[in-house]
């Protein structure tokens, strides 16, 4: 990041049109948080928040450096969402949404 400082310094000094303003932006470190775009933030199958890995993943891969990324969220046509891991196990026994009993079909997957 120190490299950018130098770049900015040069540009700031030479950049004629911008220097007429009293304050000029040199660098912005913007912070945002992402979360799954879900209506209910708890997975109804494992009762863990969808932002956390599901109960199974927490138990199994205790420290898989990107373990978190693997436990994604899945949305059904009914718009209900669950951990993908949880749902894959669920449909083996019952191909219906645990919340609304509609036949389960995947609308989209979190990535």
């Amino acid at each position, binding site marked *: 990041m120190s490299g950018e400082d130098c770049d*900015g310094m040069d540009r*700031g000094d030479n950049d004629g049109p911008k220097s007429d303003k009293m304050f000029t932006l040199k*660098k912005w470190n913007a*912070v*945002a*948080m992402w979360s799954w775009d879900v209506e209910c933030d708890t997975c109804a199958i494992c009762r863990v928040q969808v*932002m956390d890995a599901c109960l199974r993943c927490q138990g199994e891969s205790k420290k898989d*450096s990107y373990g978190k990324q693997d436990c994604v969220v899945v949305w059904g046509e009914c718009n209900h969402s669950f951990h993908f891991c949880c749902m894959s196990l669920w449909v083996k026994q019952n191909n219906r949404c645990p919340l609304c009993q509609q036949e389960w079909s995947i609308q989209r997957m979190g990535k």
Partner: protein
Amino acid sequence: MLKEKGQITFEDKWPSMRPIVLKLLKQETVTQTEWQDLFGAVHSVCLWDERGPYKLRDSLQQDITMYIKQAQVRVLAQREDQALLKAYIAEWGKFFTQCNYLPTPFRQLENSINSISKVTSSNTSSSQKKNNNNNIEDSLVRKLMLDSWNQSIFVDIKERLQDSAMKLVQAERNGESFDSQLVIGVRESYVNLCSNTIDKLQIYRENFEAAYMQATEEFYKLKASEHLLANGVQSYMKYADQRLKEEEARAHRYLEPGSGSVAALTQCCERVLIGEHLPTLLAESATLIKAGETEKLQLMFRLLDRVPEGVVPILRDLEAHIVSAGLADMVASADIITTDSEKYVERLLDLFRKFSMLVKDAFLDDPRFLTARDKAYKCVVNDTTVFKLELPSSTLARGSKGTAPESKCPELLANYCDMLLRKTPLSKRLTSEQIEIRLRDVLLVLKYIENKDVFMRYHKVHLTRRLILDSSADSEKEEDMVEWLREVGMPADYVNKLARMFQDVKVSEDLNTQFRADTTRHDAINIKILNAGAWARGSERVTVSLPLELEDYIPEVEEFYKKKHSGRKLQWYHHMSNGTITFANSVGRFDLDVTTFQMAVLFAWNQRPMEKISYENLRLATELPDPELRRTLWSLVAFPKLKRQLLCYDPLIQNPKDFVQNTIFWVNQEFALIKNGKPQRRGKINLIGRLQLSTERSQIEDNHSIVQLRILRTQEAIIKILKMRKRITNTALQSELVEILKNMFLPSKKMIKEQLEWLIEHKYMRRDDEDINTFIYMA
């Protein structure tokens, strides 16, 4: 010939046998023929005279008794103790030697008597008979001899013997020397005298040992008190220590080895020398501890540890000393340590080292003393006299009605930790190794903290700041620290969360690289897009109307992100974001590191550089909530490190709360950084200060949530225990609960009680009908 032999009677034979027997008793020379004749005679008598064996035995006994009487006269003729002992030992020695010879010719006699008794009581097994034949120690005649000695001489003179022997021992205690063989000889006679095959030491124990113990006890009862009175405790301890060693050595000399006597004697001495003076000795312990007299304490420890429960009061004294000295130290330096976490932690560590040194030097790191140190140090660490953290009383239905104040130690400890891990003057001054040592010290103190959850909370907040502002001094050390926290037993879910933050920052860095490669014109922007679950659960966002310069970037970032991921939503955390701006005025150009809020305020002047803008108009322009706007403005008009502030305002106030609607602000055109008293034309300054991660309201909520989380954890743990045990008594439950929760916080009795009531009320569990102190799990 046969008839002649058949007539052989005891009376015929005894007159020829008796002189030989007498000679043997007196240890006079016996010719080989005489010796052999004796065998023959005994054999004949036993074989031919029906009553021979008994007659023979009785006569033998008479002669032995007679001999013993004579010996007794010889012994008692001695008036003086040493001579008496000498004479006795000599007589005994002679007699005892003969005990091994005289029985031999009488084997036949023994066999006869035994076989007669075998006829009468056929129970006697042949093996036992055989035994009788072979083992001289079991010999009948020998027993006869010893018993006779015992009855005829010993009973009469044992008192005198013992007295004399004990007098000698006493004389030795007083520093006189004598022939120790005399006492040893007496002891040996006591040991050998016993014909009781089950307890061979019976006579020795009942007489000699008892007398020895009694004499020792009496001697020291008197001497110890005298010495203590005359010379005081410290000299007495040396005396007692030396005496105990002496007596042990003496006991090894004079008491029968392998009989347990030495241990009994030692115990007796310990009782008289230490046990009986315990209160007097202990009265010194507190003073010695206070004065740090490690050598004397070591002696005291060594002495008192010999008697049961002896060191318990010293443990109490040590504990009391650590607590009072520790707290006194804290109170004395309260001014410094309440404001300076570095000084505070170093102070705590100094104390810890001091106390540990004391335990090591004085009590040789005895586990009981280490425990006492730990217990007391815990009190110092968690004490609330100097400063306290006020946890709010919760108003929520589940909550407790109020909590006791807690030590602020965990907060300061976390601050210190932050100073070591962040780029600070402190961390720059130290080498990597020194930082590691200090972090280990932090963990050491952490071990003693009761409310570890508070430390974790602050530690996480500091880590968040460091990661967001890229202000870690050493990222490797950061991750080491996470593992160390795991090692010292911090709850796994907490440590995992910290680890997730590191992973997440790396993911975000990759994303930022991709983003910057993707776009050409945005080299002024870095993005951090983080997992809300790991970073910001429950934290409040603050809205702000961004300056156009910033606003422009937002859609592009969002679009980029949408291409990379799906099913995700983004929320901007502008209170965490920050940046660098260049400020140009008549003096020069300056680079300012600022928060996004500060940026939003300052950029309001870009359209109207020379204007004065009212508070109200700034609020409209930035749309910042009131508390945040006040705080932001205050950081621009009264930044502690600046001699010339960035903004000027009117009317002047002392506190950001006093800004009013029409307070006016304008940019200080004279602004400059001052170095060595001279204004500079160029320069860079960081105005971010401490990045505000939460709003004022959420800070109060933060403390609430500590309490709230504790309540949940307590309930969770109670249920966990009940699920496993099904039923459990109140006391057992409490101790298991503390065990489970101790790495987070120490649950108060009150809170436990409240949560038990709550769980009972909600039918998670119930009390036993018969015993209200027993709980039963209800599924």
